[in-house]
Structure formats: C-alpha cells, structure tokens
C-alpha cells in the first residue's frame, strides 16, 4: 500500500495521476448526467401523489449523498496529510471543500424548493435538514480557516485538523440532532423508503448518484491540478509544462 502510494507524494506524479483520472470521471459525469436527467426528468413515470414535482429527487438525493461523501473523502485526505505529512493530500482537502460545500448548498436549496409544494414551507427544523445545514457550516469553517492564513502551508494543515475534528463530531451532531428532533417534534414526513421506490424511478436515481460522483471527481481533480500548479510554480517541471503550452 505504502509502496503504491508513495510516488504520489511527489507533486508531478500526483499531477499526472489527476490527468489520467480526469477523462474517466468526465465521461461518467457527462454520460451519467445526460442519461440520468433525460431519463429521470422526461421518461420516468410521474409520482401518483406528488405528480411531476417529485422529479427534483434526481438532483436533491445525489447532491445530499455526495455532500456527505465529499466530507468523508476530505477527512480521509486530511488524516493522510497529517499522519504521513503528504502535502498533496492537504491540497486535496482544500480542493474538495468548496465542491462539497456546493453539493450541500444544492441539496439544501433543492430541498427547500421541494419542501415548499410538499410540506407548505421552505424550511422545517427537521433532523436531516438541520444536520445538512450544520454540515454546510462545517464546510464554511474549513474554507474560511484556510483562507484566513497568509501562509497557505499552515493554513492547509490547520484546515486538515479542523476537518478531522469535524468528522469526529459529525456523527455526534447527527445523532443529537435526530434525538432533539424526535423529542421536540415528529410531524414532518421526510422518511421515504428507497426499497419502496419503483424500479422505473430507482434506476435513473442510481444513474444520477453515480453521475454526481463523477461531477464531484471532475471538479475536485481540476481544482487539485490548479492547486498543485500554484504550489509548485517555481519548480522546473511546471515551467516546462507552461512552455510546452
């Protein structure tokens, strides 16, 4: 594992790895989104109760899933960065954070847009909504801590520590919010069973989930490439790359 990982500690190799991976993620993202959205928005049958407005699920659920997926990947990168002192992993943390925050924001906004016709309110203090909002705050914390540092090197490491502290707290926050919710109010209807969803809706949903993972990967890789270049701009290999055009 170490022997396999070790070469990627070098910025140049990591940059090449980004270049190799980028097309695969791009294909998954583009094809997945095209198929998933066209199938989901145009061809999947309308819900018997929510009619066509349920179709926002094809954006809402994937972004909600990957808002959490992005946070866990960010925390894993942070642990790698702090334990093995790998600078590229720090850059990965910084690259994932805004993408994850965007996913969280998309999930919250589409959730609000979905909640208005269904529950009659843009926002309810439901456990899932509250946890998602707190997740957004945690992302903002990591981002603003990084940008507050003049020295980006210490900023990156501070952001890593905060990401790890956040991921330790995340389950505690999640369960406490769920517990708080069942104590204070239990009226909202967010529970929908994935097992009870019809295959004609499930398949486009699954495709969309995979496609959103592709989008997350593409944007993160592009950002990571930029971060690596910015951090290594004085190195000969970057100059060569620039001169080659």
């Amino acid at each position, binding site marked *: 594992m170490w022997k396999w990982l070790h070469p990627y500690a070098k910025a140049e190799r990591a940059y090449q790895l980004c270049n190799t991976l980028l097309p695969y993620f791009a294909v998954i993202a583009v094809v997945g989104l095209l198929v998933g959205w066209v199938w989901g928005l145009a061809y999947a049958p309308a819900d018997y109760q929510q009619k066509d407005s349920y179709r926002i699920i094809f954006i809402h659920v994937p972004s909600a899933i990957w808002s959490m997926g992005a946070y866990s990947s960010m925390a894993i990168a942070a642990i790698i960065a702090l334990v093995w002192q790998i600078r590229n992993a720090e850059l990965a943390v910084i690259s994932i954070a805004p993408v994850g925050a965007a996913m969280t924001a998309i999930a919250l906004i589409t959730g609000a847009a979905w909640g208005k016709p269904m529950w009659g309110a843009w926002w309810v203090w439901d456990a899932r909504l509250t946890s998602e909002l707190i997740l957004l*705050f945690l992302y903002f*914390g990591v981002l603003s*801590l990084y940008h*507050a540092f003049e020295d980006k090197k*210490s900023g990156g490491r501070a952001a890593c520590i905060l990401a790890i*502290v956040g991921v330790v707290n995340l389950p505690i*926050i999640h369960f406490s*919010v769920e*517990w708080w919710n069942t104590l204070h109010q239990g009226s909202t209807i967010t529970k929908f069973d994935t097992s009870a969803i019809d295959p004609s809706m499930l398949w486009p949903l699954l495709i969309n989930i995979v496609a959103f993972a592709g989008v997350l990967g593409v944007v993160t890789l592009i950002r990571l490439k930029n971060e690596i270049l910015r951090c290594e701009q004085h190195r000969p290999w970057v100059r060569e790359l620039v001169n080659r055009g």
Partner: protein
Amino acid sequence: MQTHHSYWLAFKSVYTKDVTLAFRQRAEIVNPLLFFLIVITLFPLAIGPEPALLTRIAPGIIWVAALLSTMLGLDKLFRDDYNDGSLEQLIASPYPLSLSVLAKVAAHWTVSGLPMVLLAPLFALLMNLETQSLNATVLTLLIGTPLLSFIGAIGAGLTVALQKGGILMSLLVLPLYIPVLIFATSAIDTSSMSLAYGGQLAILGAMLAVAIVAAPIAISSALRVSVS
C-alpha cells in the same frame, strides 16, 4: 541541583500561572459574567415578561448565553502566550504539550465556567425556572462548561496565529457546540417535567470524558501548526 521532572508539577505550574494572571486582571473574569447576565436580561425585554413563557424558554436562553460568554474568554486563551513567546517555550519544554494544554483549559474553565456554575441559581431565578429545574441547570453547566472550554480551545489553537481570529473562531466552534446545547437544554426541559434526566447528563459526561482524552491532542497539534 537535581532537576525533578513531574507531570503533576508541570500541570500545577501552568494552571496556577494562568489562574493567577486571570485574578490579577479581574475584568477578564467579571466581563464575561456581566455579558452573560446582560444577554439573559435582554430576552425577557425582547420577548415579554410572562412568567410561563420565560419558564419555557429559560433553559435555551441560559445555555445560549453560556455558549456566547465562553466564546469571549476563549480568544484570550492562547493569544497572550502566543504574543509574548511563552507558547513556544511550552512547546519546547520537555513536558508533553497536551499536558500544558490540559492545564490551560482547566484554568480557563476555573475562571470562566466555574463562576457561571456558581451563579446559575441566580439566573434560574431571573428566568423564573422552578426549583426542580435548578439542580438540572447547575449540573448541566457543571458538566457542560468544561466541555465548552475543551472544544473551544481547539478553535482558539487553530486561530491564535491570525490577527482577526475572534470571529473566525466562533464560526469554527459554535457548530461543534450544538450537541452540548441539545443535551443540556433537554436535561433541563426534562427536569421541569419532573422526569429523570440522568440519561442526558450521562451523555454529556461521556462527551466530556472523550473531550478530556482527545481534545488536548487536537489542541496541541493545532498550536504546533500555529506556532510553526
């Protein structure tokens, strides 16, 4: 002269230094408490003085005020030591940094959390809490405020090198305070219904136990990043 290394002595010297310094500048102890009192005064003025309403919202207000006034002292926790270089001395000392950090957090709690615990009965009276909730208020503050100091110190350690760390620190720390807030207020709520609130206290205690073990490690690595 024989040097005598003892973890207990190291802990004690950092702790007494911080507490003594705080008592020399009494405003540092008194101001957060006054802030706590004023915030609590604002709520009845803003919402209305009906006793039943106050009883209903008292746990939340007392705890939100406690969170905010803890934040006030946190900014100073490592700042002075960072500016005069004694933080570097602590890092360079032969004792583990987590131990000194533990002492500093304990000192912070002694001057910020403990007075709040002692004054809690007064706030409970102001907010028209029933006597049965009084015990719960004091107990949750007793277990909860050290937890606030520990979590907050992580934020303070991360932002100590920044010029305007104060607001950023609240942004980092307040979301992490949410579980404490939820369980503490729920314990007081439960007690006002004359039900057993041992469960919530136990969870707070468990969180405190984890924080005592894990937070000093996080704080010291945060400080190392800030000082390097």
